[in-house]
């Protein structure tokens, strides 16, 4: 006859407690073992102040642009015009709230726009929706990291455009990740993520995700960053540590209870 100890040793927990979710319990424990840094009230206040300044600056810029529209329209460069047409808020945000290390740039634009539209002419739906959207990301690795997200945007009657948004996150710091185009498809336009690069700044080593990469594609990582649900995926592997010593290590992106962590 089997001893009670042996019986329980050979039993699966699911038989006794079907509702036990090992992964969920691990995530709770992980949170306790590696708590993300709390944001202080003054940090929140500073963030609110930055938003107010950015919004005010943006409004001022828009007003200024509209008033000076005709003058700008007669001195176009193709890229400049496209930026104005499709993403008027981008330069505003870049010049008002971001540190020089963060940037959003248009890599590929419509070939020959013939007319210039102001932001509020109603012919394009994009400008009003083309606001930056970002998740807070905490860098739990020991080195500063730059994350660049390249998105493709295809709008009716426009050539496709690629927009690259980069953010630098220092170790043990939480920062809002710059995302050039909102995660959902903007009205009448299709958006896809073509590439995400994660660079260890000290060594220049870079993990580049695209549509084919494994263990994760750029789109999968982007979904993990922007979705509301928890997720965890391996982005790739760095072969050297911050001090350029050979020390292979995986980079994992983990979203747990709303916190996005780079480990």
């Amino acid at each position, binding site marked *: 006859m089997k001893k*009670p100890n042996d019986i329980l040793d050979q039993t699966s927990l699911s038989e006794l407690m079907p509702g036990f979710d090992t992964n969920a*319990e691990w995530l709770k424990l992980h949170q306790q073992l590696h708590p993300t840094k709390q944001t202080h009230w003054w940090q929140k206040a500073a963030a609110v102040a930055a938003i107010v300044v950015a919004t005010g600056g943006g409004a001022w810029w828009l007003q200024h642009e509209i008033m000076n529209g005709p003058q700008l329209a007669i001195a176009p460069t193709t890229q400049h015009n496209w930026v104005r047409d499709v993403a008027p808020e981008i330069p505003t945000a870049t010049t008002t709230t971001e540190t020089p290390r963060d940037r959003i740039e248009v890599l590929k634009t419509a070939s020959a726009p013939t007319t210039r539209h102001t932001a509020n002419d109603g012919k394009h739906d994009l400008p009003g929706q083309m606001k930056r959207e970002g998740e807070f990301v905490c860098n739990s690795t020991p080195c500063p990291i730059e994350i660049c997200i390249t998105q493709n945007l295809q709008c009716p009657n426009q050539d496709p455009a690629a927009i690259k948004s980069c953010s630098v996150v220092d170790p043990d710091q939480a920062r809002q990740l710059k995302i050039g185009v909102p995660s959902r498809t903007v009205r009448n336009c299709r958006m896809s993520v073509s590439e995400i690069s994660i660079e260890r700044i000290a060594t220049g080593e870079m993990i580049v995700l695209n549509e084919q990469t494994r263990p994760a594609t750029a789109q999968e990582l982007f979904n993990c960053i922007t979705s509301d649900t928890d997720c965890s995926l391996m982005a790739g592997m760095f072969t050297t540590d911050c001090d350029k010593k050979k020390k292979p290590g995986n*980079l994992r992106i983990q979203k747990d209870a709303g916190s996005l962590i780079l480990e």
Partner: protein
Amino acid sequence: MIFRFSGKDDEATLMKQCQQNNATAQEKLYKLYAEDMMILCLRYVVNEEDAKEVLMDGFCNFFRNIDSFAWRGEGSVKAWLKKIVVNQCLMFLRKKNHLVLVGDTMVFDDRMADADILSGLTAKEIMKALHSLPDVWRTVINLYVFEEMQHKEIAALLGITENTSKSHLHRARIQLKKQLLPII
């Protein structure tokens, strides 16, 4: 930073990496033992939510005190973890005043203890039988039957006399026998 693991992680390597606060190693170790430890918790703590809380606290203590762990061969990690989780269960029961241990000097016949009435039952039946016992008796029978402790050790752990420990075990067995008669 997370280190890459090969498929052949041994406990010693995992423990070394856990001692470096490596989250992946911790996750691996947790997933290796969480189910066994949860079954252990359920033996002591009837309420499932309470048992999950105890498990969490147990693993927290395990990882926070991992530096004091000395490797003593395969199986030593599980043994150490088990000890921590059992202590966590006892602490929980004490905190909730479920473990009010009073002197009990009932005369017992040790021969009655020879027949291990829990043998031959299914896991579910064992759990059901254990959960039917008062906390104190359940704790003693757990320590004696499952943790294979001697009454002397149980007495020291619970702060009771050896005779009280024996008496609790005896009473637990009588109740289980009554209850399980239709099954065994």
